[in-house]
């Protein structure tokens, strides 16, 4: 399941509902990744634009891949402003045993960073500045540059 929220994530309550879901489904291994906005270089917050139709397709492809290994994925992300020391991103893998979950969490999070259609901005003095330097071109970028 893919969950989008306006503003920071309520990490404890999302974790709690995911963990209940996983134990009821008899999964033995449950791994979560939580991304939290660090206080650095005077930023007040990060801010995010999300393009949901393509994000959903990207997520559904990953879900299918996970299901083939007997695993299941969940993800939550923020839209808009997320102040420092609050969280914008959670990803989870559930599997019967640990190996599959340990492998999937790494690939899932890394591909998320490289491919998910989400744009990040630093919020400094109330202004939104595109985090171009920390962004990655999606595979196949430049197609229209003829």
């Amino acid at each position, binding site marked *: 399941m893919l969950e989008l929220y306006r503003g920071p994530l309520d990490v404890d309550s999302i974790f709690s509902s995911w963990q209940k879901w996983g134990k009821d489904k008899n999964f033995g291994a449950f791994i979560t990744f939580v*991304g939290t906005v660090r206080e650095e270089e005077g930023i007040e917050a990060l801010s995010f634009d999300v393009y949901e139709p393509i994000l959903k397709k990207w997520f559904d492809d990953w879900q299918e891949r996970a299901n083939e290994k007997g695993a299941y994925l969940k993800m939550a*992300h923020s839209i808009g402003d997320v102040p420092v020391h609050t969280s*914008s991103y959670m990803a989870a893998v559930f599997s019967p045993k640990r190996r599959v979950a340990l492998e999937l969490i790494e690939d899932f999070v890394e591909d998320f960073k490289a491919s998910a259609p*989400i744009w990040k901005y630093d919020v400094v003095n109330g202004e939104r500045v595109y985090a171009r330097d920390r962004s990655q071109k999606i595979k*196949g970028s430049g197609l229209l540059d003829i």
Partner: protein
Amino acid sequence: MVRVEFLGPIGKEPIEIEAKSLKEVAQKLKSDKEMSKWLSECAVAVNDKLVDTLDVKLKEGDKISLLPPVCGG
């Protein structure tokens, strides 16, 4: 007419243009100075599906999206 959408930080309103293929879209966008700097950085989706070739025929009402470099999380 097809609709071209500029996602995230590009910050440009959608436009409607006449184009029968993705190649024609590229040619029209190239002539827009403001846009041309983004073209080398953007991925492209047709009707919300990422594409990796310009050989895509377009039909009336298709949606083309430009996706600049991403950074979720």
